[in-house]
């Protein structure tokens, strides 16, 4: 599923990143790569989200949230 389809408060594991190369580079510098666990903190109707990765919160627009593929962790 896409991160933009997630539920606030849930923890997800990143399984793929499908965004433009420059955005992907910035995400990976933040430690957001395949295998990373992220927590979804807040979501707007349009798909923009707030999540935390490695102890830091980030807000991203719908476009990036659509491009981050995640799966539910147990």
């Amino acid at each position, binding site marked *: 599923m896409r991160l933009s389809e997630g539920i606030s408060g849930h923890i997800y594991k990143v399984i793929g990143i499908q*965004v*433009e190369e*420059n*955005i992907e*580079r*910035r*995400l*990976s*510098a*933040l*430690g957001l*790569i395949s*295998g*990373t666990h992220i927590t979804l*903190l*807040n*979501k*707007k*109707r*349009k798909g*923009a989200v*707030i999540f935390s*990765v*490695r*102890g*830091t*919160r*980030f*807000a*991203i*627009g*719908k*476009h*990036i949230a659509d491009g981050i593929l995640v799966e539910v962790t147990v």
Partner: protein
Amino acid sequence: MKEELNIGFIGNPNCGKTTLFNAYTGAKLKVANWPGVTVEKKEGAMKYHEHLFKLVDLPGIYSLTSYTMEEKVSRNYILSDDVDVIIDVVDASALERNLYLTLQLIELGKPVVLALNMMDIVEERGMEIDMHRLPEMLGIPAIGVSARKKTGLEILMHAASHHKDHSTPDNLVHQHKSDKESKHVHNHHEEYAMVYSDLIEDKIDLIIEELQTHYPHLTNFRWHAIKLLEMDPEIMEKYPINRPDIIDRSYEKDIINQKYDFIEEIIEEVVVNKSKQVATTDKIDNLLTHRFLGLPIFLGIMAIVFFLTFTVGDYLKGYLEILLEWISGGATAGLEAVGAHPMLISLIVDGIIAGVGGILTFLPNIFILFLALAFLEDSGYMSRVAYVMDGIMGKIGLSGRAFIPMLLGFGCTVPAVMASRTLENRRDRLKTMLVTPFMSCSARLPIYVLFSEMFFKEHAMLVAYSMYVIGIVVAILVAFIMSRVEQVGSENSLLIELPEYKAPNARSIAIYVWEKIRDYLTKAGTTIFIASVIMWMISNIGPTGFVTDMSESFAASIGKVLVPIFTPIGLGHWQIVVALISGIAAKEIVVASCGVLYGIGNINSEQGMSDIVTLLAATGFGAVNAYALMVFCLLYVPCAATIATIKKESDSRKYTLCAVAFQLGVAWLMAFLVYQVGRLL
């Protein structure tokens, strides 16, 4: 022995780097741009015992690749000989995020000292950091500090001065857990903190051999080899090697992954009680970024900011105006007493004091606005605004981040245009710079106040408000049309860090506000000073020399030439034209110029107003003309200081000229519509 040491401060955004930097240098900073780019460079100096330390504050960055301007500037500075020691400032309460940059810095091979900032917060949360184990794993000294509480500052500088010659790591005591079956010929763990997998280490060895043959003078072969494996564009161009068998693809992702694997090992061994999370920020965010309440709360906060700016600011401004009148009266009397030439008196009183002083009376408004904005920024709220506004801004093809400069535009266009530099891509920056001047700044308010009171009487307030609305509508419309024409909307996606909320730091706010006020004073002392002198000269000197009748001045000649252009928009009077031209120096001057050009002493008084209305009415200038004038003032070229700022920020004369021409065109067109439609009513 006296020595001079150059120390570079580097760290992630929001790690408290600038607070730490300010704690050492105070407000005595030299702020400039790095050569050739619009990335701010802050320099300060301090005395440490008998030594002189020069401190450079590098931009806040997450990594040291060469994909953004900030990263490139930082990397090249660190690689240069201009720096002796690097202080890597990390937020100790978010070590996992911050150590990535640290590992990259260590690889660069310069002496690095780790400053673990925010140790007070670490303690508050009951976390503990093993300060013995951390240096063992990284091979660099680690010092706990708190920039806000000013602890550990002395010992950090001590470490920096003693560590300046250590370009090889201190005792490293570490083996990766996964290394048991390593078949790589070298055990690098005693030499380097960051050791990669066999596959990568083998390739690094081969590339180093190549580099040693082709570029024997390089200083850090390992770092260059790693960068070549990452296919870093800058290093590939500078030091190309032709070995596609080794560099068969970019190993950037593998290298990033392995760095983060190592960081996870460090966190596991070094941080105790890390699971204890602070819920405060999440609780505040639940309210402030709420999907329905977020926007109304933001609008409420802005209403308070503007209320403070205009009511409290205007209250203080009244006192400054009294002071200004007193100075201007005193100067006239004093100059007359010493028998100064009337021409000189006129230049000083009507030109310089009226021009520069008129601008300085806005200082209280500016001060309060920036105080409020500094408060919003330092507390961590500003980045939430970008999130709250992202949906609306997305519709006009900009990211939520672009809303921050537009918001600042209500105060003063100059810092607003400067704020656009925080946007990631140049196209968004240019677009934001183009529409930000349409947001009605405080300098335009005197024009609305005067003309709406003269021509609209009881509806004056409504007319003044309508200007703000027209400004916002035009800005949104222009951005919307541009996004439709461009047809590319994918890249403007928001990506912004939301720092923990914290009580704003008085010192940081004081320095922030002082920087803006100083800029404003400098502007008044230079641009506006010169513009005021020129304005006075062209309206008092004509082909026949010093003129008493202004209609014989150069100003009148210029105005009369341009009258045909302004006639279709209802402003075909040479005095109005000249006032509008003078408004390019600063929009407030339009009001003062009208008074001077129509020969009315106190244009703000009731007598003065009725005089000018009678005068104008005789030439057919009525309410519709006045409204067209206000619309034109709202939209036409921003003041000279804004034009200079747009030039500086865009670094393009062509763009600046186009922007100015575009704004003039929009203003003319809108005023034309208002006048032609209004005449029919």
